[in-house]
């Protein structure tokens, strides 16, 4: 008994922090678990049978994937640039990148609508080559891109910062051009960070609701569908779609994270 008291006394900090941490963990897990386990598998199966639901989930996944690919093409070069150069106003640029995370996403949707709508030259230019953003898949993609690309840029930047510049320098002395040094040394070494950033970006894109709602209520992505069913028919009708969406997200996220983790150990 005395030994046990002493054991506890010696670990007061650890025990306190463990208990506090447990509260927040339960806060995250319980709603998710409760919703999943209180659903009737039969109803879930029926909901999955609805073509409308399947196409909404499919649309969500691939629009977020396209956003991630665009993020890779445009965000990784920026991340590399920021990791390798010091310049006046760099802090400002870095802050700018984080802004989409902090602004309300409905407001972000409005802002995007202004630029990519029909009344601004950007929207007109895209319109002239046949790309419309309002109530169309490209609108969903840019909404997702806007709110989720900071995750990819920041993660890729951290990855590039960890690559020793001298590795690139050695590559140059060995006959590699700056492009070859990037593709043969920097990119493979930062790849893990870029990949996990991409996973975060994709997941964040899938979960986007506010900005997508403003730009494209239709075609309907899964988060909008959850909202619509809740508004029009109530909780019981919205829940199966929500559960399916959560399950899809959890499964994908765990699979991709473990893939990234495997890469880390290899």
């Amino acid at each position: 008994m005395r030994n046990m008291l002493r054991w506890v006394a010696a670990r007061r900090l650890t025990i306190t922090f463990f208990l506090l941490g447990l509260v927040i963990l339960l806060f995250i897990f319980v709603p998710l678990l409760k919703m999943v386990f209180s659903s009737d598998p039969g109803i879930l199966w029926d909901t999955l049978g609805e073509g409308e639901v399947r196409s909404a989930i499919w649309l969500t996944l691939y629009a977020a994937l396209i956003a991630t690919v665009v993020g890779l093409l445009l965000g990784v070069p920026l991340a590399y640039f920021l990791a390798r150069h010091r310049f006046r106003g760099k802090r400002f640029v870095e802050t700018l990148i984080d802004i989409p995370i902090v602004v309300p996403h409905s407001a972000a949707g409005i802002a995007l609508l202004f630029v990519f709508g029909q009344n601004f030259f950007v929207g007109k230019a895209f319109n002239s080559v046949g790309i419309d953003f309002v109530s169309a898949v490209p609108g969903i993609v840019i909404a997702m891109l806007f709110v989720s690309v900071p995750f990819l840029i920041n993660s890729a930047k951290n990855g590039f910062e960890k690559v020793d510049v001298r590795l690139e320098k050695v590559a140059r002395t060995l006959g590699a051009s700056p492009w070859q040094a990037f593709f043969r040394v920097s990119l493979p070494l930062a790849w893990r960070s870029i990949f996990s950033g991409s996973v975060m970006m994709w997941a964040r894109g899938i979960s986007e609701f506010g900005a997508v709602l403003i730009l494209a209520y239709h075609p309907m992505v899964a988060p909008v569908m959850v909202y619509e069913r809740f508004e029009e028919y109530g909780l019981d009708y919205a829940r199966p779609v929500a559960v399916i969406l959560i399950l899809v997200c959890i499964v994908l996220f765990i699979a991709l994270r473990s893939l990234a983790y495997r890469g880390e150990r290899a």
Partner: protein
Amino acid sequence: MIEIKNLTVDLGTFSLQDINLKIEPGEYFIVLGPTGSGKTILLESIAGLYPIKSGEIWLNGTEVTKVEPEKRGIGFVYQDYALFPHLSVKGNILFGLKQMKRPKEELLSTVDWIAGLLGVSHLLERKPETLSGGERQKVALARALSISPQVLLLDEPLSALDPQAREDVQHELRQIHRRLETTIIHVTHDFEEAIALGDRIAVLGEGHILQIGTPEQIFRQPSSEFVARFAMARNIFSGEVRDAEEGDSIFSIGDLELAVVTELRGKLHASLRPEDILISKEAVISSARNSLRGTITRIDNRGSTLYLTVSTPLDFVCLVTRRSFEELGLKAGEEVYITFKASAIHIF
């Protein structure tokens, strides 16, 4: 041949100014300077990896000042190896070779040859992180040599290694230089290293080249106090190591013979740190020790410690604490015995 004319490089807090060097083909050239003297930047400037302010760099009669680093054909080895962590040893050595448009078998046979030359053939499939420091540095050398560089630049290649690996890699450097006759520029802050390897030494300090000469010249006739401080840091002697009875070794400097512990033989250098020498008024009898009689010719007071120069007549600089100095009642002109272990003498 490599020639550097009036090179000026801005380093932010200070600059390298008016660097003029002319390095002969096949020469092993040392740039000796303290930490923070801009040695690494000097090498990076030569390789085209660091922007220079003014000056010219000539390589075998061609000006390369504005040539891209990848087109200069200059091999580079960094202090902490800078091996590509995502590639195997083989992948590292192949990196530069792959840039050349040659048949695959030819590349692989070059890898085998260069790995054999540096004794890393058994490591080819390993990842850099699994290698010891000495092994890593040999792989870095193999990688730099794989492109048959016109000049090999070595940035403190031995400084990160433990003593045994250091001796090993140093031996390897000498072998490579002898066999491939590569022109080498090697920067270091270590005077022993400079003497052991260099055909000529340039001393870099305060942003300038202070002296260029053979190791002997730098050591015997330092042109400035700065150079002298480098050279006087330790007891350094030139001599010859040969066999003694019972497998021991003798280092002879003229008539003087010292017992040493080494596997090396031939004309070499020996160094002895001042703090490894014991000063006494009576001879110390001990079989494993060197004991010499001499006269104190100079006393350099550093506060809690003192440097004494004892002439045997060969000069030994010894370090004593103020306390033992006072207890022994030492003064200039006095006869003393100096004693040091055979293992305290470093042969290089």
